[in-house]
């Protein structure tokens, strides 16, 4: 049986990971930042003898526990399911290198979940000092889950030279720590910590917005302003960390940022620039809006305002995660594995023996495929981790107006992967024997024929017709 290369209609399998991941980031970063917010705020309330704060904080802790413990944990596991189905080769490579890292993360994660529950359920039942200690212990464990996953995520952007030297030799594990503390590890950790602290403030504002400002003006003003202050660190340090991060990103990847400045091209080449633009705009606006809504008029802060802020934070985190994914192109693991799952070192072997014969995800027992089926297998294996047939980065749209000859020429460019090819910056090489590539061209020619733009129902039915080919 062939491994199920996941065929998700419309959004493509990449966006399944993307949507889960953005949802997860909003919550998991809150789990880390909020983990610091709770004990720090409790500490402050105890020192200043503010009983009313503690009452609000307790409600916030409950909200925190439910949101992070249920939705955060479940969406985290969801990412595992999605990446395994979408990108088996990349997932496999990560597991082979970082199984020990994930084991550590799992320990911290279990501690984190347990402590969060203990923190909430012991509220008011144990001495204050002990309760605070539990809170700080939670903050510590949740920070380390971030610390470890950050190592793995930054590794995917660029593993660093030491690891790349031994990649593929079977000695990868010997450079575990070099790969873990790769060049972008620290600036990325800084960026993520700032995002955590900001999200702690943003989610806390949601809790604070429910305080009745007319009945308890003093309480509302003080808590809203305290929570709004949590956006200040990121406001001050974001340019710094962002500059440092870009400095550490390999030159070839940084050049991708420039691609979309002068053109929208056919849309795909400029996605990173456009996503970065949203990152900039949303990060600035979210701080300004918190300042205006929360800091300047704390008593009037209502739930719609807080939801508005949350929406801006979602724009900021979502576009950041998207930009981070795009920054890796044409690789899924920088300098090692292309985004279609082909290892850089295996390109020659694939070209010689054939992609379908080399890839481990297609059963070797299958009898010789006929032309179209071979083309589709090539498409599923090498195109579908980024493209869909007819919607997201649609083949129908991108290949519109081309015939078999021009599609063949385009595939030739992708296959030859010459230094000056404009596609080289973004797309992996197309591997396989000439016969396989011809099959792919035949297949693409068939699926890229735009359905006649007459009636709506026909348009909707087109993807189903395309499938059996």
């Amino acid at each position, binding site marked *: 049986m062939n491994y199920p290369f996941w065929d998700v209609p419309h959004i493509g399998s990449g966006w399944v990971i993307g949507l889960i991941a953005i949802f997860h980031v909003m919550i998991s970063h809150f789990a880390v930042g909020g983990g610091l917010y709770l004990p720090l705020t409790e500490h402050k309330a105890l020192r200043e003898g503010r009983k009313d704060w503690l009452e609000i904080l307790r409600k916030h802790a409950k909200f925190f526990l439910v949101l992070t413990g249920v939705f955060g944990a479940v969406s985290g596991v969801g990412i595992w399911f999605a990446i395994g189905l979408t990108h088996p080769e990349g997932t496999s490579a990560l597991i082979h290198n970082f199984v020990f890292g994930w084991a550590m993360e799992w320990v911290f994660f279990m501690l984190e979940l347990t402590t969060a529950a203990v923190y909430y359920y012991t509220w008011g039942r144990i001495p204050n000092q002990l309760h605070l200690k539990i809170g700080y212990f939670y903050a510590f464990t949740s920070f380390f889950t971030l610390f470890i996953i950050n190592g793995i995520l930054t590794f995917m952007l660029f593993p660093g030279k030491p690891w790349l030297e031994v990649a593929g030799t079977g000695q990868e594990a010997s450079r575990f720590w070099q790969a873990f503390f790769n060049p972008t590890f620290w600036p990325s950790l800084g960026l993520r910590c700032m995002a955590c602290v900001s999200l702690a403030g943003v989610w806390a504002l949601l809790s604070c917005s429910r305080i009745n400002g007319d009945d308890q003006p003093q309480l509302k003003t003080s808590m809203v302003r305290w929570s709004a202050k949590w956006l*200040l660190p990121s*406001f*001050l340090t974001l*340019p710094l960390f962002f500059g440092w991060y870009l400095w550490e990103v390999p030159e070839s990847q940084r050049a991708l940022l420039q691609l979309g400045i002068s053109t929208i091209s056919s849309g795909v080449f400029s996605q990173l620039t456009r996503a970065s633009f949203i990152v900039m705009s949303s990060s600035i606006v979210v701080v300004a809006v918190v300042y205006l809504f929360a800091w300047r008029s704390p008593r009037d802060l209502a739930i719609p305002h807080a939801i508005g802020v949350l929406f801006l934070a979602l724009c900021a985190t979502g576009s950041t995660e998207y930009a981070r994914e795009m920054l890796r192109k044409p690789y899924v693991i920088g300098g090692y594995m292309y985004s279609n799952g082909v290892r850089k070192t295996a390109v020659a072997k694939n070209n010689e023996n054939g992609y379908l014969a080399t890839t481990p995800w297609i059963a070797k027992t299958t009898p010789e495929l006929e032309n179209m089926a071979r083309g589709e297998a090539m498409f599923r294996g090498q195109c579908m981790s980024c493209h869909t047939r007819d919607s997201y980065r649609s083949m129908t749209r991108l290949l519109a107006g081309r015939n078999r000859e021009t599609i063949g020429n385009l595939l*030739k*460019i992708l296959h030859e992967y010459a230094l*000056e090819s404009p596609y080289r910056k973004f797309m992996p090489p197309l591997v396989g024997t000439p016969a396989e590539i011809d099959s792919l061209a035949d297949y693409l020619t068939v699926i890229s024929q735009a359905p006649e733009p007459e009636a709506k129902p026909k348009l909707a039915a087109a993807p189903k017709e395309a499938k059996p080919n």
Partner: protein
Amino acid sequence: MKKEYNHKAVPTEGEMTRGAFLKAAAGGVGLCYAAAAGYPIYRYLSSPIEKVESAATVSEVTVPDGQKLAKGEAKMFKFGAKPAMLIHHQDDSWVALIAVCTHLGCTAQYESAKNRIFCACHGGVYDPKTGGNVSGPPPRPLTRLEVKVTADGVVVTQNPTAKT
């Protein structure tokens, strides 16, 4: 970061300077953000200047051993940042062109069998003698360069009248 907000033990005077420092820092960072917001507009307005400057940076390139190019063959080389091609025609004439397709900026190729310059991205076709856009989507001809064949190589220079 957390300590700044937490310790009330800091003396009042220190508090004052901290406030002033924060204000100054926030103002400075705010300026950075404002500059970032103005950056696209600056780049937009300066586009023609950048284009002129990048075109002016390179005006002459020598293609080493270009003179050994056989008739009916073409050779790719870099003219500044742009890919360019040198063609030695069957009638012994030499033509050099910037190989950036005027449609969407892909690199065009010389196809000697069909005696045409072809951009595979969207099927644009150019005349290999003049660089004129013959068919397909390209809106303008390719930019021509001046060619001088010497004993050590082919010297390609920017055509002073052509605009890039």
